Protein backbone atom coordinates (compact mmCIF):
# COMPACT_ATOMS: atom_id res chain seq x y z
CA UNK A 1 0.00 0.00 0.00
CA UNK A 2 1.03 3.53 -0.67
CA UNK A 3 2.83 4.78 2.49
CA UNK A 4 1.01 8.11 2.29
CA UNK A 5 -2.53 6.69 2.37
CA UNK A 6 -3.96 9.06 4.94
CA UNK A 7 -7.48 8.00 5.79
CA UNK A 8 -8.31 11.27 7.53
CA UNK A 9 -7.31 13.23 4.44
CA UNK A 10 -9.20 10.97 2.01
CA UNK A 11 -12.30 11.00 4.25
CA UNK A 12 -12.14 14.80 4.20
CA UNK A 13 -11.94 14.80 0.39
CA UNK A 14 -14.99 12.49 0.37
CA UNK A 15 -16.86 14.77 2.84
CA UNK A 16 -17.34 11.79 5.11
CA UNK A 17 -16.99 12.06 8.90
CA UNK A 18 -15.66 8.85 10.42
CA UNK A 19 -15.40 7.80 14.05
CA UNK A 20 -11.90 6.90 15.32
CA UNK A 21 -12.98 3.23 15.39
CA UNK A 22 -14.09 3.45 11.73
CA UNK A 23 -10.83 5.15 10.74
CA UNK A 24 -8.85 2.33 12.29
CA UNK A 25 -11.00 -0.47 10.85
CA UNK A 26 -11.26 0.98 7.32
CA UNK A 27 -7.55 1.83 7.16
CA UNK A 28 -6.69 -1.81 7.96
CA UNK A 29 -9.26 -3.25 5.51
CA UNK A 30 -8.35 -0.81 2.74
CA UNK A 31 -4.66 -1.63 3.23
CA UNK A 32 -5.48 -5.25 2.35
CA UNK A 33 -7.58 -4.22 -0.66
CA UNK A 34 -4.95 -1.78 -1.95
CA UNK A 35 -2.31 -4.47 -1.62
CA UNK A 36 -4.49 -6.77 -3.72
CA UNK A 37 -5.05 -4.04 -6.32
CA UNK A 38 -1.27 -3.66 -6.69
CA UNK A 39 -1.36 -6.77 -8.89
CA UNK A 40 -2.45 -4.57 -11.80
CA UNK A 41 1.10 -3.20 -11.81
CA UNK A 42 2.32 -6.59 -13.07
CA UNK A 43 0.72 -5.85 -16.43
CA UNK A 44 2.38 -3.86 -19.18
CA UNK A 45 -0.31 -1.42 -20.32
CA UNK A 46 1.88 0.85 -22.44
CA UNK A 47 0.16 1.72 -25.68
CA UNK A 48 -3.24 0.46 -24.48
CA UNK A 49 -6.14 2.90 -24.79
CA UNK A 50 -8.32 3.23 -21.66
CA UNK A 51 -11.95 2.07 -21.81
CA UNK A 52 -14.34 4.46 -20.06
CA UNK A 53 -17.47 2.60 -21.15
CA UNK A 54 -18.35 -0.25 -23.48
CA UNK A 55 -20.99 1.40 -25.69
CA UNK A 56 -20.35 2.07 -29.38
CA UNK A 57 -21.87 5.56 -29.14
CA UNK A 58 -20.29 9.01 -29.23
CA UNK A 59 -21.71 12.50 -28.76
CA UNK A 60 -25.35 11.63 -28.29
CA UNK A 61 -27.23 14.91 -28.58
CA UNK A 62 -30.87 15.88 -28.28
CA UNK A 63 -32.81 18.83 -29.63
CA UNK A 64 -32.38 21.91 -27.41
CA UNK A 65 -36.06 22.31 -26.61
CA UNK A 66 -37.93 23.18 -23.43
CA UNK A 67 -39.73 20.11 -22.13
CA UNK A 68 -41.95 19.50 -19.10
CA UNK A 69 -40.03 18.93 -15.88
CA UNK A 70 -40.73 18.65 -12.15
CA UNK A 71 -42.68 21.54 -10.64
CA UNK A 72 -41.03 23.58 -7.90
CA UNK A 73 -43.26 21.87 -5.36
CA UNK A 74 -42.39 18.37 -6.58
CA UNK A 75 -38.68 19.16 -6.70
CA UNK A 76 -38.78 20.34 -3.08
CA UNK A 77 -41.01 17.59 -1.74
CA UNK A 78 -38.08 15.47 -0.47
CA UNK A 79 -36.03 18.42 0.83
CA UNK A 80 -34.86 18.14 4.45
CA UNK A 81 -35.28 21.93 4.89
CA UNK A 82 -37.13 24.35 2.62
CA UNK A 83 -38.86 27.72 2.64
CA UNK A 84 -40.32 30.09 0.05
CA UNK A 85 -39.78 27.57 -2.74
CA UNK A 86 -36.07 27.21 -1.93
CA UNK A 87 -33.72 24.74 -0.21
CA UNK A 88 -32.43 26.00 3.16
CA UNK A 89 -28.66 25.58 3.60
CA UNK A 90 -26.15 26.83 6.20
CA UNK A 91 -24.71 30.29 5.68
CA UNK A 92 -21.96 30.21 3.06
CA UNK A 93 -20.78 33.87 2.93
CA UNK A 94 -20.41 36.24 5.88
Amino acid at each position, binding site marked *: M*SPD*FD*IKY*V*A*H*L*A*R*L*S*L*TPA*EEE*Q*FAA*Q*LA*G*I*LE*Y*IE*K*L*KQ*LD*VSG*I*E*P*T*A*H*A*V*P*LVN*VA*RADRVRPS*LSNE*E*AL*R*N*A*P*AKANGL*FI*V*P*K*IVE
Partner: protein
Amino acid sequence: MMLNQLTTWQIAAKLARREASARQAMQDCLDQIQRVDGRLHAFLSYDAADALAQAGQADQALASGAADKPLLGVPIAIKDVIAVRGQPLSCASKILGNFVSPYSATVIEKLREAGAVVFGRLNMDEFAMGSSTENSAFGATRNPWDLSRIPGGSSGGSAAAVAADECLAALGSDTGGSIRQPAALCGCVGLKPTYGRVSRYGLVAFASSLDQIGSLTKDVRDAALLLAAISGQDPRDSTSVPQPVPDYASGLNGDIKGLKIGLAREYMIGGLDPQVSAAVQAAVKQLEKLGAHIVEISLPHTQYAVAAYYIIATAEASANLARFDGIRYGARVEGADPIELYSKTRGAGFGPEVKRRVILGTYVLSSGYYDAYYLRAQKVRTLIRRDFLEAFAHVDAIATPTTPTAAFRVGEKSGDPLQMYLSDIFTISCNLAGICGVSVPCGFTENPKLPIGLQLLGKPFGEETILKLAHAYEQSANWHKEKPPPSL
Protein backbone atom coordinates in the same frame (compact mmCIF):
# COMPACT_ATOMS: atom_id res chain seq x y z
CA MET B 1 -51.82 -24.68 -7.25
CA MET B 2 -51.73 -21.13 -5.94
CA LEU B 3 -51.38 -18.53 -8.70
CA ASN B 4 -48.22 -17.04 -7.15
CA GLN B 5 -46.41 -20.33 -7.89
CA LEU B 6 -46.83 -19.94 -11.65
CA THR B 7 -44.45 -18.29 -14.10
CA THR B 8 -45.35 -14.98 -15.75
CA TRP B 9 -46.13 -16.62 -19.10
CA GLN B 10 -48.34 -19.22 -17.41
CA ILE B 11 -50.32 -16.64 -15.44
CA ALA B 12 -50.58 -14.29 -18.44
CA ALA B 13 -52.07 -17.14 -20.49
CA LYS B 14 -54.48 -18.10 -17.67
CA LEU B 15 -55.60 -14.48 -17.32
CA ALA B 16 -56.04 -14.05 -21.06
CA ARG B 17 -58.27 -17.15 -21.09
CA ARG B 18 -60.16 -15.68 -18.09
CA GLU B 19 -59.43 -18.81 -16.02
CA ALA B 20 -58.21 -16.67 -13.12
CA SER B 21 -58.27 -13.04 -12.06
CA ALA B 22 -55.31 -10.70 -11.73
CA ARG B 23 -56.70 -9.70 -8.35
CA GLN B 24 -56.50 -13.29 -7.16
CA ALA B 25 -52.94 -13.62 -8.49
CA MET B 26 -51.96 -10.48 -6.60
CA GLN B 27 -53.78 -11.66 -3.47
CA ASP B 28 -51.95 -15.01 -3.61
CA CYS B 29 -48.62 -13.15 -3.70
CA LEU B 30 -49.67 -10.97 -0.76
CA ASP B 31 -50.75 -14.05 1.20
CA GLN B 32 -47.40 -15.70 0.54
CA ILE B 33 -45.59 -12.54 1.68
CA GLN B 34 -47.69 -12.60 4.85
CA ARG B 35 -46.77 -16.23 5.38
CA VAL B 36 -43.01 -16.18 4.75
CA ASP B 37 -41.58 -12.67 4.61
CA GLY B 38 -41.27 -12.29 8.38
CA ARG B 39 -38.52 -14.92 8.13
CA LEU B 40 -37.20 -14.05 4.67
CA HIS B 41 -37.24 -10.22 4.73
CA ALA B 42 -37.17 -9.89 0.95
CA PHE B 43 -39.47 -6.83 0.98
CA LEU B 44 -38.64 -3.49 2.57
CA SER B 45 -42.22 -2.33 1.99
CA TYR B 46 -45.24 -2.84 -0.23
CA ASP B 47 -48.57 -1.14 -0.72
CA ALA B 48 -51.14 -3.95 -0.78
CA ALA B 49 -54.10 -1.67 -1.53
CA ASP B 50 -52.33 -0.08 -4.50
CA ALA B 51 -51.23 -3.49 -5.82
CA LEU B 52 -54.78 -4.86 -5.62
CA ALA B 53 -56.16 -1.71 -7.26
CA GLN B 54 -53.73 -2.12 -10.17
CA ALA B 55 -54.72 -5.78 -10.43
CA GLY B 56 -58.39 -4.75 -10.46
CA GLN B 57 -57.69 -2.42 -13.38
CA ALA B 58 -55.97 -5.26 -15.20
CA ASP B 59 -59.08 -7.41 -14.65
CA GLN B 60 -61.24 -4.66 -16.15
CA ALA B 61 -58.94 -4.47 -19.15
CA LEU B 62 -59.11 -8.25 -19.51
CA ALA B 63 -62.92 -8.16 -19.24
CA SER B 64 -63.07 -5.61 -22.03
CA GLY B 65 -61.06 -7.92 -24.24
CA ALA B 66 -57.68 -6.18 -24.07
CA ALA B 67 -55.60 -9.33 -23.68
CA ASP B 68 -52.88 -8.32 -26.13
CA LYS B 69 -50.43 -7.00 -23.52
CA PRO B 70 -47.78 -9.64 -22.75
CA LEU B 71 -47.71 -9.07 -18.96
CA LEU B 72 -51.30 -7.96 -18.37
CA GLY B 73 -52.14 -8.49 -14.70
CA VAL B 74 -48.78 -10.09 -13.79
CA PRO B 75 -47.43 -9.01 -10.34
CA ILE B 76 -43.79 -7.93 -10.65
CA ALA B 77 -41.77 -6.60 -7.70
CA ILE B 78 -38.98 -4.03 -7.88
CA LYS B 79 -35.53 -3.70 -6.30
CA ASP B 80 -35.36 -0.64 -4.07
CA VAL B 81 -32.93 1.12 -6.43
CA ILE B 82 -35.42 1.74 -9.28
CA ALA B 83 -37.77 4.73 -9.05
CA VAL B 84 -41.55 4.23 -9.07
CA ARG B 85 -43.47 7.51 -8.91
CA GLY B 86 -45.18 8.02 -5.55
CA GLN B 87 -43.44 5.06 -3.90
CA PRO B 88 -40.58 5.11 -1.37
CA LEU B 89 -37.02 4.62 -2.65
CA SER B 90 -34.21 4.10 -0.16
CA CYS B 91 -31.52 1.95 -1.86
CA ALA B 92 -31.64 0.16 1.52
CA SER B 93 -29.81 3.16 2.97
CA LYS B 94 -30.64 5.44 5.88
CA ILE B 95 -29.32 8.44 3.96
CA LEU B 96 -32.39 8.67 1.72
CA GLY B 97 -34.65 9.11 4.75
CA ASN B 98 -38.31 9.10 3.69
CA PHE B 99 -37.59 9.77 0.02
CA VAL B 100 -40.56 9.30 -2.32
CA SER B 101 -39.82 9.08 -6.06
CA PRO B 102 -41.14 12.08 -8.01
CA TYR B 103 -41.01 10.13 -11.30
CA SER B 104 -40.86 6.57 -12.61
CA ALA B 105 -37.93 4.82 -14.26
CA THR B 106 -38.32 4.04 -17.96
CA VAL B 107 -38.37 0.29 -17.18
CA ILE B 108 -41.36 0.87 -14.87
CA GLU B 109 -43.26 2.78 -17.56
CA LYS B 110 -42.46 -0.03 -19.99
CA LEU B 111 -43.61 -2.75 -17.58
CA ARG B 112 -46.86 -0.83 -17.11
CA GLU B 113 -47.29 -0.48 -20.88
CA ALA B 114 -46.91 -4.27 -21.03
CA GLY B 115 -49.72 -4.52 -18.45
CA ALA B 116 -47.74 -5.58 -15.36
CA VAL B 117 -48.86 -4.90 -11.80
CA VAL B 118 -45.76 -3.18 -10.37
CA PHE B 119 -45.52 -3.50 -6.60
CA GLY B 120 -43.20 -3.61 -3.60
CA ARG B 121 -39.71 -2.44 -2.71
CA LEU B 122 -37.22 -5.32 -2.56
CA ASN B 123 -34.29 -5.45 -0.14
CA MET B 124 -30.70 -5.14 -1.37
CA ASP B 125 -27.20 -4.31 -0.25
CA GLU B 126 -27.05 -0.57 0.45
CA PHE B 127 -26.65 1.27 -2.89
CA ALA B 128 -26.19 -2.17 -4.52
CA MET B 129 -22.76 -2.55 -2.91
CA GLY B 130 -22.38 -6.12 -1.74
CA SER B 131 -22.78 -9.79 -2.53
CA SER B 132 -24.99 -10.97 0.33
CA THR B 133 -27.72 -8.36 1.10
CA GLU B 134 -26.17 -8.16 4.58
CA ASN B 135 -25.26 -4.54 3.81
CA SER B 136 -28.91 -3.42 3.88
CA ALA B 137 -29.43 -0.74 6.53
CA PHE B 138 -32.75 -2.45 7.27
CA GLY B 139 -31.50 -5.97 7.99
CA ALA B 140 -30.36 -8.89 5.84
CA THR B 141 -32.58 -10.98 3.55
CA ARG B 142 -32.38 -14.76 4.09
CA ASN B 143 -32.06 -17.52 1.53
CA PRO B 144 -35.39 -19.36 1.05
CA TRP B 145 -33.54 -22.70 0.67
CA ASP B 146 -31.81 -22.30 4.06
CA LEU B 147 -32.69 -19.40 6.35
CA SER B 148 -29.25 -19.46 8.01
CA ARG B 149 -27.70 -18.48 4.67
CA ILE B 150 -27.45 -15.34 2.57
CA PRO B 151 -29.48 -15.03 -0.66
CA GLY B 152 -26.60 -13.39 -2.50
CA GLY B 153 -26.55 -9.77 -3.51
CA SER B 154 -26.92 -7.10 -4.17
CA SER B 155 -30.35 -8.04 -5.64
CA GLY B 156 -30.87 -10.56 -2.81
CA GLY B 157 -34.42 -9.41 -2.05
CA SER B 158 -35.37 -9.81 -5.71
CA ALA B 159 -33.94 -13.34 -5.93
CA ALA B 160 -35.41 -14.50 -2.61
CA ALA B 161 -38.86 -13.07 -3.44
CA VAL B 162 -38.96 -14.85 -6.82
CA ALA B 163 -37.64 -18.15 -5.41
CA ALA B 164 -40.16 -18.04 -2.56
CA ASP B 165 -43.10 -17.25 -4.91
CA GLU B 166 -43.79 -13.88 -3.27
CA CYS B 167 -44.06 -12.36 -6.73
CA LEU B 168 -44.11 -13.70 -10.28
CA ALA B 169 -40.87 -12.00 -11.30
CA ALA B 170 -38.66 -9.11 -10.17
CA LEU B 171 -36.39 -6.43 -11.53
CA GLY B 172 -32.86 -6.07 -10.20
CA SER B 173 -29.69 -4.26 -11.18
CA ASP B 174 -26.29 -5.76 -11.97
CA THR B 175 -23.00 -3.85 -11.69
CA GLY B 176 -20.65 -6.78 -11.05
CA GLY B 177 -22.97 -9.77 -10.77
CA SER B 178 -25.77 -8.39 -8.59
CA ILE B 179 -28.51 -10.12 -10.60
CA ARG B 180 -26.75 -13.34 -11.67
CA GLN B 181 -25.11 -14.20 -8.33
CA PRO B 182 -28.28 -14.02 -6.17
CA ALA B 183 -30.23 -15.79 -8.93
CA ALA B 184 -27.70 -18.64 -8.77
CA LEU B 185 -27.76 -18.81 -4.97
CA CYS B 186 -31.58 -18.76 -4.78
CA GLY B 187 -32.25 -21.08 -7.74
CA CYS B 188 -33.83 -18.66 -10.19
CA VAL B 189 -32.94 -17.27 -13.61
CA GLY B 190 -31.04 -13.96 -13.59
CA LEU B 191 -30.38 -11.99 -16.76
CA LYS B 192 -27.94 -9.09 -17.07
CA PRO B 193 -28.53 -7.54 -20.48
CA THR B 194 -25.79 -5.95 -22.57
CA TYR B 195 -24.79 -2.47 -21.42
CA GLY B 196 -27.05 -0.09 -23.37
CA ARG B 197 -29.80 -2.67 -24.01
CA VAL B 198 -32.07 -1.36 -21.21
CA SER B 199 -32.52 2.28 -20.20
CA ARG B 200 -31.00 3.24 -16.85
CA TYR B 201 -33.23 6.33 -16.49
CA GLY B 202 -34.66 6.15 -12.97
CA LEU B 203 -32.05 3.65 -11.72
CA VAL B 204 -30.04 5.15 -8.85
CA ALA B 205 -26.48 5.17 -10.19
CA PHE B 206 -23.75 3.13 -8.47
CA ALA B 207 -21.11 2.74 -11.22
CA SER B 208 -22.61 4.28 -14.34
CA SER B 209 -20.38 2.55 -16.90
CA LEU B 210 -21.19 -0.89 -15.42
CA ASP B 211 -24.79 -0.69 -14.12
CA GLN B 212 -27.56 -2.43 -16.02
CA ILE B 213 -31.16 -3.29 -15.11
CA GLY B 214 -32.31 -6.87 -15.66
CA SER B 215 -34.73 -9.53 -14.48
CA LEU B 216 -34.96 -12.31 -11.91
CA THR B 217 -37.49 -14.90 -13.01
CA LYS B 218 -38.63 -18.47 -12.44
CA ASP B 219 -37.64 -19.67 -15.89
CA VAL B 220 -35.89 -18.61 -19.09
CA ARG B 221 -39.09 -17.89 -21.03
CA ASP B 222 -39.99 -15.31 -18.38
CA ALA B 223 -36.54 -13.74 -18.74
CA ALA B 224 -37.15 -13.45 -22.50
CA LEU B 225 -40.58 -11.87 -21.97
CA LEU B 226 -39.34 -9.34 -19.45
CA LEU B 227 -36.32 -8.43 -21.56
CA ALA B 228 -38.55 -7.75 -24.58
CA ALA B 229 -40.76 -5.59 -22.35
CA ILE B 230 -38.03 -3.41 -20.80
CA SER B 231 -35.47 -3.11 -23.65
CA GLY B 232 -35.00 -0.38 -26.20
CA GLN B 233 -33.44 2.99 -26.79
CA ASP B 234 -34.60 5.76 -24.49
CA PRO B 235 -34.02 9.45 -25.24
CA ARG B 236 -33.62 9.96 -21.48
CA ASP B 237 -30.59 7.64 -21.28
CA SER B 238 -27.92 8.65 -23.78
CA THR B 239 -26.10 5.34 -23.26
CA SER B 240 -29.09 3.26 -24.40
CA VAL B 241 -28.40 1.88 -27.86
CA PRO B 242 -30.63 2.20 -30.96
CA GLN B 243 -30.70 -1.52 -31.57
CA PRO B 244 -33.97 -3.23 -32.57
CA VAL B 245 -35.64 -5.33 -29.85
CA PRO B 246 -36.25 -8.86 -31.11
CA ASP B 247 -39.05 -11.13 -29.91
CA TYR B 248 -36.74 -13.02 -27.57
CA ALA B 249 -39.34 -15.64 -26.61
CA SER B 250 -39.90 -16.75 -30.22
CA GLY B 251 -36.27 -17.89 -30.42
CA LEU B 252 -36.69 -20.39 -27.57
CA ASN B 253 -37.12 -23.45 -29.78
CA GLY B 254 -34.61 -25.85 -28.25
CA ASP B 255 -32.55 -25.94 -31.44
CA ILE B 256 -28.98 -25.30 -30.36
CA LYS B 257 -27.34 -27.63 -32.86
CA GLY B 258 -23.98 -26.30 -33.99
CA LEU B 259 -23.80 -23.44 -31.51
CA LYS B 260 -20.30 -23.14 -30.07
CA ILE B 261 -19.82 -22.79 -26.32
CA GLY B 262 -16.44 -21.74 -24.96
CA LEU B 263 -14.90 -22.99 -21.72
CA ALA B 264 -12.20 -20.65 -20.43
CA ARG B 265 -9.25 -22.42 -18.90
CA GLU B 266 -8.65 -19.40 -16.63
CA TYR B 267 -11.96 -20.14 -14.89
CA MET B 268 -10.75 -23.49 -13.52
CA ILE B 269 -9.67 -21.77 -10.33
CA GLY B 270 -8.72 -22.99 -6.91
CA GLY B 271 -11.48 -22.28 -4.42
CA LEU B 272 -14.12 -23.60 -6.82
CA ASP B 273 -16.35 -25.89 -4.78
CA PRO B 274 -16.17 -29.50 -6.13
CA GLN B 275 -19.97 -29.86 -6.12
CA VAL B 276 -20.37 -26.60 -8.04
CA SER B 277 -17.68 -27.68 -10.48
CA ALA B 278 -19.32 -31.09 -11.02
CA ALA B 279 -22.78 -29.56 -11.59
CA VAL B 280 -21.45 -27.08 -14.14
CA GLN B 281 -19.47 -29.77 -15.97
CA ALA B 282 -22.58 -31.94 -16.12
CA ALA B 283 -24.55 -29.00 -17.51
CA VAL B 284 -21.94 -28.41 -20.21
CA LYS B 285 -22.09 -32.14 -21.11
CA GLN B 286 -25.86 -31.83 -21.36
CA LEU B 287 -25.55 -28.84 -23.71
CA GLU B 288 -23.15 -30.89 -25.82
CA LYS B 289 -25.67 -33.74 -25.93
CA LEU B 290 -28.28 -31.25 -27.12
CA GLY B 291 -26.07 -30.43 -30.08
CA ALA B 292 -23.74 -27.62 -28.96
CA HIS B 293 -20.01 -27.80 -29.67
CA ILE B 294 -17.68 -27.28 -26.72
CA VAL B 295 -14.51 -25.33 -27.46
CA GLU B 296 -11.67 -24.48 -25.11
CA ILE B 297 -10.88 -20.78 -25.09
CA SER B 298 -8.62 -18.41 -23.17
CA LEU B 299 -9.46 -15.16 -21.36
CA PRO B 300 -5.90 -14.36 -20.31
CA HIS B 301 -6.59 -11.24 -18.24
CA THR B 302 -9.21 -12.87 -16.00
CA GLN B 303 -7.00 -12.72 -12.92
CA TYR B 304 -6.94 -8.91 -13.10
CA ALA B 305 -10.70 -8.41 -13.37
CA VAL B 306 -11.53 -8.13 -9.66
CA ALA B 307 -8.79 -5.56 -9.04
CA ALA B 308 -9.75 -3.46 -12.08
CA TYR B 309 -13.41 -3.69 -11.13
CA TYR B 310 -12.92 -2.48 -7.57
CA ILE B 311 -10.99 0.55 -8.81
CA ILE B 312 -13.42 1.52 -11.57
CA ALA B 313 -16.61 0.74 -9.64
CA THR B 314 -15.53 2.56 -6.48
CA ALA B 315 -14.21 5.56 -8.44
CA GLU B 316 -17.53 5.94 -10.24
CA ALA B 317 -19.43 5.34 -6.99
CA SER B 318 -17.51 8.01 -5.12
CA ALA B 319 -18.54 10.53 -7.80
CA ASN B 320 -22.15 9.30 -8.10
CA LEU B 321 -22.76 9.23 -4.36
CA ALA B 322 -21.53 12.81 -3.93
CA ARG B 323 -25.16 13.84 -4.54
CA PHE B 324 -26.21 12.39 -1.18
CA ASP B 325 -25.18 15.41 0.85
CA GLY B 326 -28.28 16.33 2.87
CA ILE B 327 -29.19 19.37 0.79
CA ARG B 328 -31.89 18.46 -1.72
CA TYR B 329 -33.37 15.21 -0.41
CA GLY B 330 -33.04 12.56 2.24
CA ALA B 331 -31.81 12.80 5.80
CA ARG B 332 -29.73 15.73 7.06
CA VAL B 333 -27.46 16.21 10.07
CA GLU B 334 -27.02 19.95 10.64
CA GLY B 335 -23.57 21.51 10.71
CA ALA B 336 -22.08 24.98 11.27
CA ASP B 337 -21.10 25.26 7.60
CA PRO B 338 -21.90 23.29 4.44
CA ILE B 339 -18.82 21.05 4.66
CA GLU B 340 -19.64 20.03 8.22
CA LEU B 341 -23.26 19.41 7.19
CA TYR B 342 -22.18 17.20 4.26
CA SER B 343 -19.65 15.24 6.32
CA LYS B 344 -21.94 14.64 9.28
CA THR B 345 -24.90 13.75 7.06
CA ARG B 346 -22.84 11.27 5.06
CA GLY B 347 -21.10 9.89 8.15
CA ALA B 348 -24.47 9.19 9.79
CA GLY B 349 -26.33 8.14 6.64
CA PHE B 350 -24.00 5.69 4.89
CA GLY B 351 -23.27 2.18 6.18
CA PRO B 352 -19.75 0.69 6.50
CA GLU B 353 -19.45 -0.91 3.03
CA VAL B 354 -20.58 2.27 1.28
CA LYS B 355 -18.10 4.31 3.32
CA ARG B 356 -15.26 1.89 2.48
CA ARG B 357 -16.01 2.11 -1.23
CA VAL B 358 -16.44 5.89 -1.25
CA ILE B 359 -13.05 6.23 0.47
CA LEU B 360 -11.36 3.78 -1.89
CA GLY B 361 -12.93 5.49 -4.91
CA THR B 362 -11.97 8.94 -3.69
CA TYR B 363 -8.40 7.75 -3.10
CA VAL B 364 -7.92 6.17 -6.55
CA LEU B 365 -9.18 9.37 -8.19
CA SER B 366 -7.19 11.73 -5.98
CA SER B 367 -4.40 13.94 -7.23
CA GLY B 368 -1.20 11.93 -7.72
CA TYR B 369 -2.92 8.51 -7.79
CA TYR B 370 -5.30 8.85 -10.74
CA ASP B 371 -2.83 7.52 -13.33
CA ALA B 372 -1.48 4.75 -11.12
CA TYR B 373 -4.89 3.36 -10.22
CA TYR B 374 -7.86 4.65 -12.19
CA LEU B 375 -6.27 5.15 -15.61
CA ARG B 376 -4.38 1.86 -15.32
CA ALA B 377 -7.60 0.04 -14.39
CA GLN B 378 -9.32 1.51 -17.46
CA LYS B 379 -6.50 0.19 -19.63
CA VAL B 380 -6.81 -3.24 -18.04
CA ARG B 381 -10.52 -2.98 -18.79
CA THR B 382 -9.58 -2.60 -22.47
CA LEU B 383 -7.54 -5.82 -22.26
CA ILE B 384 -10.40 -7.69 -20.59
CA ARG B 385 -12.89 -6.47 -23.19
CA ARG B 386 -10.50 -7.53 -25.96
CA ASP B 387 -10.20 -11.00 -24.41
CA PHE B 388 -13.96 -11.43 -24.76
CA LEU B 389 -14.26 -9.98 -28.27
CA GLU B 390 -11.42 -12.25 -29.37
CA ALA B 391 -13.11 -15.28 -27.77
CA PHE B 392 -16.46 -14.38 -29.35
CA ALA B 393 -14.83 -14.48 -32.77
CA HIS B 394 -14.71 -18.26 -32.23
CA VAL B 395 -17.68 -19.08 -29.97
CA ASP B 396 -21.33 -18.05 -29.59
CA ALA B 397 -21.35 -18.14 -25.78
CA ILE B 398 -19.07 -18.85 -22.84
CA ALA B 399 -20.11 -21.20 -20.02
CA THR B 400 -18.88 -20.70 -16.45
CA PRO B 401 -20.09 -21.33 -12.92
CA THR B 402 -22.00 -18.23 -11.77
CA THR B 403 -20.37 -18.40 -8.33
CA PRO B 404 -17.42 -20.39 -6.87
CA THR B 405 -19.58 -21.80 -4.05
CA ALA B 406 -23.23 -22.18 -3.10
CA ALA B 407 -24.81 -19.74 -0.62
CA PHE B 408 -22.62 -19.04 2.41
CA ARG B 409 -23.82 -18.47 5.97
CA VAL B 410 -25.00 -15.11 7.25
CA GLY B 411 -21.96 -13.45 8.86
CA GLU B 412 -19.44 -15.84 7.27
CA LYS B 413 -17.73 -13.24 5.07
CA SER B 414 -19.10 -9.93 6.32
CA GLY B 415 -15.93 -9.16 8.30
CA ASP B 416 -13.61 -9.59 5.32
CA PRO B 417 -14.50 -7.33 2.37
CA LEU B 418 -11.72 -8.66 0.12
CA GLN B 419 -12.95 -12.27 0.46
CA MET B 420 -16.44 -11.02 -0.35
CA TYR B 421 -15.12 -9.24 -3.48
CA LEU B 422 -13.22 -12.33 -4.66
CA SER B 423 -16.45 -14.36 -4.69
CA ASP B 424 -17.54 -12.18 -7.67
CA ILE B 425 -14.75 -13.52 -9.90
CA PHE B 426 -17.01 -15.17 -12.53
CA THR B 427 -19.51 -12.33 -12.90
CA ILE B 428 -17.42 -9.16 -12.81
CA SER B 429 -15.72 -9.38 -16.23
CA CYS B 430 -19.09 -9.35 -18.00
CA ASN B 431 -19.81 -5.83 -16.73
CA LEU B 432 -16.28 -4.58 -17.50
CA ALA B 433 -16.61 -5.91 -21.06
CA GLY B 434 -20.19 -4.62 -21.45
CA ILE B 435 -21.49 -8.00 -22.66
CA CYS B 436 -24.59 -9.93 -21.54
CA GLY B 437 -24.92 -12.88 -19.19
CA VAL B 438 -27.57 -15.18 -17.75
CA SER B 439 -27.51 -17.50 -14.74
CA VAL B 440 -29.73 -20.58 -14.95
CA PRO B 441 -30.18 -23.27 -12.25
CA CYS B 442 -27.97 -26.32 -12.91
CA GLY B 443 -28.40 -28.48 -9.81
CA PHE B 444 -28.00 -28.55 -6.07
CA THR B 445 -25.37 -29.26 -3.48
CA GLU B 446 -26.10 -32.11 -1.07
CA ASN B 447 -26.41 -31.62 2.69
CA PRO B 448 -27.52 -28.93 2.74
CA LYS B 449 -29.47 -28.75 -0.52
CA LEU B 450 -28.53 -25.41 -2.05
CA PRO B 451 -28.97 -24.18 -5.64
CA ILE B 452 -26.07 -23.96 -8.11
CA GLY B 453 -26.02 -21.66 -11.15
CA LEU B 454 -24.63 -22.07 -14.66
CA GLN B 455 -23.61 -18.78 -16.24
CA LEU B 456 -23.78 -18.26 -19.99
CA LEU B 457 -22.04 -15.14 -21.27
CA GLY B 458 -22.93 -13.75 -24.68
CA LYS B 459 -21.74 -11.26 -27.26
CA PRO B 460 -22.82 -7.64 -27.05
CA PHE B 461 -26.56 -7.78 -27.90
CA GLY B 462 -26.30 -11.57 -28.04
CA GLU B 463 -29.18 -12.12 -25.58
CA GLU B 464 -31.14 -14.22 -28.10
CA THR B 465 -28.34 -16.78 -28.25
CA ILE B 466 -27.71 -17.13 -24.51
CA LEU B 467 -31.45 -17.29 -23.80
CA LYS B 468 -31.87 -19.98 -26.45
CA LEU B 469 -29.04 -22.03 -24.92
CA ALA B 470 -30.25 -21.46 -21.35
CA HIS B 471 -33.79 -22.45 -22.34
CA ALA B 472 -32.71 -25.63 -24.15
CA TYR B 473 -30.66 -26.64 -21.10
CA GLU B 474 -33.39 -25.73 -18.61
CA GLN B 475 -36.08 -27.69 -20.45
CA SER B 476 -33.91 -30.80 -20.62
CA ALA B 477 -32.74 -30.60 -17.00
CA ASN B 478 -35.86 -29.27 -15.22
CA TRP B 479 -34.00 -27.94 -12.17
CA HIS B 480 -36.16 -24.82 -12.32
CA LYS B 481 -39.22 -26.81 -11.21
CA GLU B 482 -37.75 -27.49 -7.77
CA LYS B 483 -39.09 -25.30 -4.98
CA PRO B 484 -37.60 -24.28 -1.62
CA PRO B 485 -38.65 -26.44 1.37
CA PRO B 486 -42.32 -26.03 2.32
CA SER B 487 -41.22 -25.42 5.91
CA LEU B 488 -39.91 -22.02 4.75
